[in-house]
């Protein structure tokens, strides 16, 4: 299919005799917002690392048609580090310039555009460490968008962000998806928000248990992925549905 932006085929990875991921295959198309859920240690972050190229020695095939923007898990905030917001965002442009080729005026204009897109342009000259959790998350998003990615990958972007911040962050992702017609792959522990914001949901626990429309996932599929944690998740989903559909 032409609109496919990521194809993963039979991806497996193990450390010694311990399987981290086993035979994972899926496709993601443009303008698809995919949420990845699964218990701790299910291999979600390993999957992300394989896709962004930070993992070696896996078996299987990963084909990315386009550039990837990547928001890593729990970035170290380094609150007292003397770096400005605009400098952090400009890091995403480094690859376009490279060593011995300093940023030009056009790059800084691009940085301003990125900061405007994520809604923190007024903070451009602030020390990055003084930003709130939500603002910092937007800065990380601006940096990930710098290379004009066709696929945006986020690993637990909600850590350290309050509920209001999360809701508006997901709205921002949704509008980015539509405006720039990019694919989004997001790992999250926030099940309620995943079902709310994402188009499709993937349940992962070593293997891929399901990858289907967010509103078509059955309790049985969730059970197969989460086993002992199921009760909690079922309840949280019920709760979510009661809140939104009644």
């Amino acid at each position, binding site marked *: 299919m032409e609109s496919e932006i990521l194809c993963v085929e039979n991806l497996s990875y193990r450390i010694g005799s311990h399987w981290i991921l086993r035979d994972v295959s899926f496709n993601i198309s443009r303008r698809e917002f995919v949420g990845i859920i699964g218990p701790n240690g299910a291999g979600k972050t390993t999957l992300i690392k394989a896709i962004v190229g930070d993992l070696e020695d896996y078996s299987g095939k990963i084909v990315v048609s386009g550039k990837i923007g990547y928001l890593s898990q729990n*970035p170290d905030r380094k609150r007292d580090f*003397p*770096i*400005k917001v605009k*400098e952090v965002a400009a890091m995403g442009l*480094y*690859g376009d310039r*490279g060593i*011995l080729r300093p940023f030009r005026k056009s790059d800084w204009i691009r940085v301003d555009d990125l900061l405007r897109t994520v809604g923190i342009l007024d903070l451009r000259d602030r020390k990055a460490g003084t930003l709130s959790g939500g603002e910092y998350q937007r800065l990380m998003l601006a940096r990930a968008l710098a290379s004009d990615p066709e696929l945006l990958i986020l690993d637990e972007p909600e850590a350290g962000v309050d509920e209001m911040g999360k809701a508006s962050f997901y709205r921002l992702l949704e509008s980015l998806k539509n405006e720039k017609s990019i694919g989004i792959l997001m790992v999250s522990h926030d099940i309620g928000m995943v079902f709310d914001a994402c188009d499709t949901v993937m349940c992962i626990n070593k293997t891929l248990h399901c990858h289907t429309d967010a509103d078509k996932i059955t309790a049985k599929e969730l059970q197969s992925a989460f086993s002992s944690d199921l009760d909690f998740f079922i309840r949280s989903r019920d709760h979510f549905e009661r809140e939104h559909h009644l």
Partner: protein
Amino acid sequence: MIQNFLSDIISYSFLRNAILAAVLVSALTGIFSSVVVLRKIEFIGDGAAHATFGGIAFGLLLGTDYILMAAITAVVFAVAVSYFTRKNKLSESSVIGMLLPLSMSLGVIALSFVRGYTPDVMGLFFGNILMVTSDDVWMLLIANVIAWVFFAVFYRELLYYSYDEGMAKHYGVPIGFIHYAVLIGISLSVVSSVKIAGIILVTAFLVIPAVTSKTIARSFRGMILISLGMAVVASVMGIFVSYLLDMPPGPVIVVMLFMEFLITISLKALIRVRF
């Protein structure tokens, strides 16, 4: 008082060399101190200095130029630290914590074999201004120029390397090159600082200026420049005070660096209270 000091600087070449060397050493260690403090590798100065001691001892034992030997061991030390931290995923502090006493021990063992006259070991520990020659001043000047050019050319890389190594690598910053260059640079600046600062005190030169400037700097560039200013002012004041009160200059400079730190945080607190 100041006139005497100035006229002595003009008349005595050793004093002139000493003050020039002190300023150049402060500038050199001051510029590296920002990366040392931001990367939280404060221990590296200590490690390199003790590796230097090992090199000096072997130089004495073999009867070769001991500063050259010190430079070689300091670079070997830096490369070993980089190698072990990158290949075996050990923390820099762990590796330095192992290699520091090792090189010190090898140094002491080597010294025990040296027969007859050994030069002033205390001078190596705490610095001895009388050991500074005009060749040293030239060497320090060249080292400064190289370090400044390196920081000017690779400013962005140094900034991103210090801030977030993992993501910097992801975005294509040549982390390996910067990492080795920084550690070798720090080690060589330690070697060139030994005569002024001494093995034991050189850490202060690599740490205090940046700790002070970090409390007030708003940008990486600002931090580097403030560290440099702090280090140079402390070294000039330190030489002057030590001349006046007849005290060893290395330790006096360290006291000055710490006083700058105290004054800076006090002023910062005062300003915050006022406004």
